[in-house]
């Protein structure tokens, strides 16, 4: 034997053929797009050119593969290319949103007063060294916190009911929950406004806003929670019953702990759904620029409402403040999600 060590064979798709096909299709697509957009077609804008380029790339790539391989292989690779492009586009959109907000808002958040002051004594035209989002931050945390306090236990309990108890009534409940998840935020806001403010005579407050948010959050937590509970394997429940446990003990000690990470996701999706909601808050919380830490009395501002108010001024500083607040909102979401993920980690006794 001449070879001292065995040569490992490559089994992945990234062989010379694939690379050359990709490069060929890429070069072809870029040139064609350039020629056509510069000379022939009326596509002046970057977005249109990019779209055209992508389509051309996929077509050329398919032709390249087909000419050296088979139509069968071409179909497979074109599908792979399309899905990859879809994923990249989505990722690009996300990056664009976050970076756009960051670029427009970073100047505001760099000032310490942005975190420690309110806009109670600050006008929209005042420089960024005055005023901040403290009141809105407190309002958002309180309103979302109360909404979660209401809808997480209720939602998870309903999810347990739908999945573990079931029965004919469960189907009705599921339909109602589905209908609830289709209710637009503004309708939830209107409902709370009509019932609490107009009928019962309570003033607009953070609490009213929190209830509107809870109405929106409940179906998300319930339906996601139900799906997660359904993923818990039946043999685990059987094992628990075979040890002599009751249904409640089985749910409490086996089903819920097993589904723990998934249930955290359910809660997070619920929070994510409402934390940036403007419409229901707009109708129910009232507006004040002052810090009001009491959600039960008087108007209370929140981050979405703050953004909504500031961004409507045709003034650079106000708009900067709005983007700064948006950045704060993104930060709050990231912090909450990271914390929840850490808490949701499986830890053994």
């Amino acid at each position: 034997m001449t070879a001292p060590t065995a040569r490992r064979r490559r089994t992945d798709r990234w062989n010379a053929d694939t690379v050359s096909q990709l490069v060929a299709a890429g070069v072809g697509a870029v040139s064609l797009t350039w020629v056509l957009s510069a000379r022939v077609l009326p596509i002046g804008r970057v977005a249109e050119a990019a779209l055209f380029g992508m389509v051309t790339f996929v077509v050329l790539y398919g032709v390249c593969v087909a000419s050296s391989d088979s139509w069968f292989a071409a179909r497979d690779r074109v599908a792979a290319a399309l899905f990859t492009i879809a994923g990249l586009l989505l990722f690009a959109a996300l990056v664009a949103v976050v970076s756009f907000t960051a670029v427009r808002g970073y100047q505001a958040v760099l000032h310490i007063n942005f975190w420690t002051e309110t806009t109670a004594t600050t006008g929209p035209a005042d420089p960024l060294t005055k005023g901040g989002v403290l009141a809105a931050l407190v309002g958002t945390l309180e309103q979302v916190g109360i909404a979660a306090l209401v809808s997480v236990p209720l939602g998870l309990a309903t999810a347990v009911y739908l999945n573990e108890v079931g029965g004919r009534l469960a189907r009705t409940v599921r339909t109602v929950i589905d209908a609830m998840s289709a209710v637009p935020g503004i309708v939830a806001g209107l409902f709370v406004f009509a019932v609490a403010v107009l009928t019962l005579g309570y003033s607009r407050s953070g609490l009213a806003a929190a209830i509107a948010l809870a109405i929106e959050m409940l179906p998300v937590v319930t339906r996601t929670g139900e799906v997660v509970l359904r993923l818990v394997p039946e043999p685990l429940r059987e094992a628990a019953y075979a040890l002599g446990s009751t249904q409640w003990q089985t749910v409490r000690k086996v089903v819920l702990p097993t589904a723990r990470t998934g249930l955290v996701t359910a809660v997070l999706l619920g929070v994510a759904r409402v934390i940036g909601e403007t419409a229901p808050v707009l109708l129910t919380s009232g507006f004040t620029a002052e810090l009001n830490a009491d959600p039960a009395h008087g108007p209370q501002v929140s981050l979405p409402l703050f953004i909504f108010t500031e961004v409507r001024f045709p003034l650079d500083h106000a708009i900067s403040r709005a983007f700064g607040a948006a950045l704060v909102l993104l930060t709050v979401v990231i912090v909450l999600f990271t914390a929840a993920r850490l808490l949701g980690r499986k830890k053994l006794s």
Partner: protein
Amino acid sequence: MNEPALLAPVTPRTAVRPHLVADQVSAWFGDHQVLEDITLTVHNSTVTALIGPSGCGKSTFLRILNRMHEMVPGASLAGRVLLDGEDIYERRVRPTDVRRTVGMVFQKANPFPAMSIADNVVAGLLITGRKTADKDALIERSLRRAGLWKEVENRLRTPAGTLSGGQQQRLCIARALAVDPEVLLMDEPCSALDPTSTRRVEETISEISHEVSVVIVTHNMQQAARVSQRCAFFLAEDGEPGRIVEQGQTYGVFNSPTDPRTADYVAGRFG
């Protein structure tokens, strides 16, 4: 033929008496009858093997013995199941008490993934909220009885999912033993195990059978011959519900069956 299981037991047993008695049991799933007129006695401190071709109702029968059958929507049954002379389907008997007394090991190992190895062993206590004087001792004793202690004593706090399939099955046996059942039902406990693990489980069965009455479903004739003292042959003929064709001492059923169908089955000629 020299079957060790048929020799005199090493430790003296208490007098053999009927422990769990199925009396004219029939079972249905919806309108589909799967068992008819099953009468079978499980003696205390004895291993009883249930054999028979696939789909003849062995698992269903086993689940009737600890009231797991009724967990299936639409399932129903007729007849009586007497545990120490008392009907477990009597109205005032709680299913949870029955299941605590008549434990079960399933065909596929099903440890609780969210619990550590140690917690899995005492899961019966943790879930039902009962206390024990010395948990660590119970964990060790149960794992020793299941023949798993040596392999896991240094990793009791790790998740149960990190064990191999055979170890998980023995963990499930330890879990079933930790609640101190009087009867242990085992539904093909070795069907997913390698020969070595199978041996260990069989040894475990032999050891615990001095204190616990064991009912084991198996498709492995050698296993039935090795571990059981008594044996029942189930058969469901075309479109008919399952019935017991023959039952009695394992040695007799295997070596001088009275029914030709039993002879064919234990000789591997069908099923």
